[in-house]
């Protein structure tokens, strides 16, 4: 079975660009986290936005760690390679999102139910002039949102080209950050107008968003670890590659019947193909040539084990329980 390079050269360039963008994201997020920390005050909405930015560090870190680890070639201790590293990193990030989001949601809703009013008073950040902390909060929120949306927009096409779900999920979270910042800003302005509940309501909205992100990512991470059939980058539908590979196999003159199953391993797909040959002539050569041909179909197909079988057992369609 010939081993392809994991990535063609042009994709590798995109990977380098993605890695650079993720480093920039991490540095920028750290600065936003520090700025938000200094303008937290006693606002629950600010706290939720701050926590969400801290959690926003986990996908870039997961991506960068996974990029290093999965490039390692398989060895005798890890004969299947290190592809699963991404899925594990992804799972951890999703669990963190879910758990912290749920906690902040509980915190915000209980503050709302206890009718807690948020105090926002004066600070003197630059020398002698006092300024209402709310203005600084709005400025910090704007700083934390606008670059994030821009970074998200830059990352998303890269994620599609690299077939990287972690990067894609990260870009989605970035692009949606305008909602978080907007909600927190409305919370602060609401407090300014004397609407005491604006703060906890905004915080609750933000934490629901965090929980939703966590849940979505958790589902994708679990599907990945359970070797679910490959889906397109935004998880909307099944990827057409397994069917394509099967059709290509069926077109070969020595193949009577074929079945293909693939699973996702980070960027790439791996799997098995079962073929029923018409006769046993030059089976090894035929299989080898077929393998070369199929791996050339799509850069994402990394490894395909072709096995001759007397008869195909087709998997059943998934029931409603799916």
């Amino acid at each position: 079975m010939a081993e392809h390079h994991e990535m063609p050269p042009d994709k590798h360039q995109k990977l380098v660009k993605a890695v650079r963008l993720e480093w920039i994201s991490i540095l920028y997020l750290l600065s936003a986290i520090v700025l938000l920390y200094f303008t937290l005050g006693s606002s629950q909405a600010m706290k939720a936005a701050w926590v969400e930015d801290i959690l926003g560090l986990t996908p870039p870190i997961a991506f960068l760690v996974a990029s290093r680890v999965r490039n390692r070639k398989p060895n005798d201790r890890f004969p299947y390679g290190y592809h699963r590293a991404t899925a594990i990193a992804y799972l951890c990030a999703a669990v963190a999102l879910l758990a912290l989001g749920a906690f902040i949601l509980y915190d915000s809703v209980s503050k709302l139910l206890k009718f807690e009013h948020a105090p926002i008073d004066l600070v003197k950040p630059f020398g002698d002039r006092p300024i209402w902390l709310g203005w600084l909060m709005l400025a910090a929120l704007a700083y934390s949102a606008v670059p994030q949306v821009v970074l998200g927009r830059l990352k998303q096409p890269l994620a599609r080209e690299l077939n990287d779900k972690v990067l894609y999920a990260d870009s989605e979270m970035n692009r949606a950050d305008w909602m978080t910042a907007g909600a927190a800003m409305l919370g602060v302005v609401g407090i300014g107008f004397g609407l005491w509940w604006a703060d906890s309501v905004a915080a609750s909205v933000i934490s629901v968003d965090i929980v939703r992100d966590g849940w979505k990512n958790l589902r994708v991470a679990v599907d990945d670890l359970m070797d679910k059939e490959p889906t397109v980058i935004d998880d909307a539908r099944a990827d057409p590659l397994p069917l394509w590979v099967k059709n290509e196999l069926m077109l070969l003159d020595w193949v009577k019947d074929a079945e293909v199953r693939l699973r996702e391993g980070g960027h790439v797909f791996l799997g098995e193909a079962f073929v029923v040959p018409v006769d046993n002539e030059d089976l090894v050569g035929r299989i080898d040539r077929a393998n070369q041909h199929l791996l050339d179909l799509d850069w994402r197909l990394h490894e395909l084990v072709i096995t001759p079988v007397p008869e195909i057992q087709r998997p059943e369609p998934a029931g409603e329980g799916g």
Partner: protein
Amino acid sequence: MNQTRSSRRAGPLLAAVALLAVLAAGCGIPRDPESTLDRVRGGTLRAGITASEPWTTLEGGRPGGVEVELVERFATELGARVEWVDGSEADLMAALEVRELDLVVGGLTADTPWQAKAAITRSYATTRVVVAVPSSQPAPDDIAGLRVAVEAGTDAAGILEDKTDAIPVRVADVTQVRGSAVAVEEWLLADLDLRDTGVHLSRSKHVMATPMGENAFLVRLERFLIANQGEVPALLDKAEAGR
């Protein structure tokens, strides 16, 4: 959800919030949820007081002291009359929480545990307890083994033992001690003719308490305190002279 569509709405939403904020800038932001400042202006300021010399005193039921003086001036600025209510800190904070009072003073400091229930102001004065010697004596390089008079019933003795090797001698009134090293509030150094040894035992940031969330009132009080914090040393001297 189609992210492209919602992302394109980002611009307009942020613009709307920015507009709202700008409008707010001209509209008396921040406001009180329960209109405390509006009610107090030209009306009555209900202030809770608990005695804590020299910040607040209650001689024969009459409020006096640095913070009382400041509150009276604040009320004058607002065209209000002060109604003083005395009680323990716990009672006053409970009343403040349900907005039965507008303000509580009593030598409160920034580390007060009541800040979970009341909105405390920025600190308007910071005072320190220092170890001092009579100005006729030179300041010692090291106070280890020095006998230092401390006020009984305060934390000064404990801090002295923890932080230094000096020996605390508890006395009833540390301002009556002559000819010995004392642990005393910094503003009393000039009055008592003492010299600072440079050893500082503790620091207190003084604040006042307002109802949680009444941000217009809080901000107005803070602006007053910032403008008048220069008066505090003079008020402290006056309070000391009156003793």
